């Protein structure tokens, strides 16, 4: 793995579900982020673009490539980051 300069960017795909999708009026967004970005960095950037996400406080959950992920997980190019409220199926 070659090291990348910090100003290099990658594209990640963002998916919103449930109330988070209503808040953003978007179900899918492709986002350019720094190649060093973590889930938290991307989420903060999304909150600027979609201020309504703030009403969820800290309750939103994240999944990277269909696995639950914490805020410090680092994203890779073409990763799929899903953002959603606590699940309520069943």
């Amino acid at each position, binding site marked *: 793995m070659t090291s990348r300069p910090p100003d290099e960017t990658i594209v990640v795909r963002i*998916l919103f*579900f*449930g*109330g988070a999708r*209503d808040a953003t009026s978007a179900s899918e967004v492709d986002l350019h982020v720094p190649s060093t970005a973590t889930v938290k960095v991307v989420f903060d950037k999304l909150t600027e673009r979609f201020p309504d996400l703030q009403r969820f406080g800290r*309750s939103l*959950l994240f*999944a990277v490539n*269909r*696995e*639950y992920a*914490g805020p410090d997980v680092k994203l890779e190019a073409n990763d799929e980051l*899903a953002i*959603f*409220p*606590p*699940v*309520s*199926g*069943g």
Partner: protein
Amino acid sequence: MSEQNTVCDYRCPLDFFELTKEPIDVGAVARRVVPRECGATVSLDGYAREWTKGRKTEYLVYEAYDRMAITEMERLGRDAHKRFEIAHVGIVHRTGRLEIGDTSVVISVSAPHRRAAFEACQWLISELKKTVPIWKKEVFSDGEVWVEGDSNPDT
């Protein structure tokens, strides 16, 4: 084949984990997990409730993060095989619009001994509600609300 051979501690090839937009037939799900060697199947049939906290629901909408939902259900199935002496697991969850009384989810578990089937089925619905990415929206005559789970499924 002995009785013991029907208990898998991994995901059995006969297990199934599905999402569907069509009505679910609880009996059909229950009978799909029946192996010739087993003795009991326990099924949970969850369905849309008309009254929640005194408020009348008109209908419900279930939305799923489809691919992750299947992945999570498969993981739950594998975990259930590790935790309980069970034979087969089947989970079918419906998505889209559901009328009152429509089945939203069926979980069926077969086992040589019924206690394991009861325990696994109860564990599976509890875990499904915590970790499988599906959301429920209740629609009332005067509005609608996304139901939020109150558990934190951080893994």
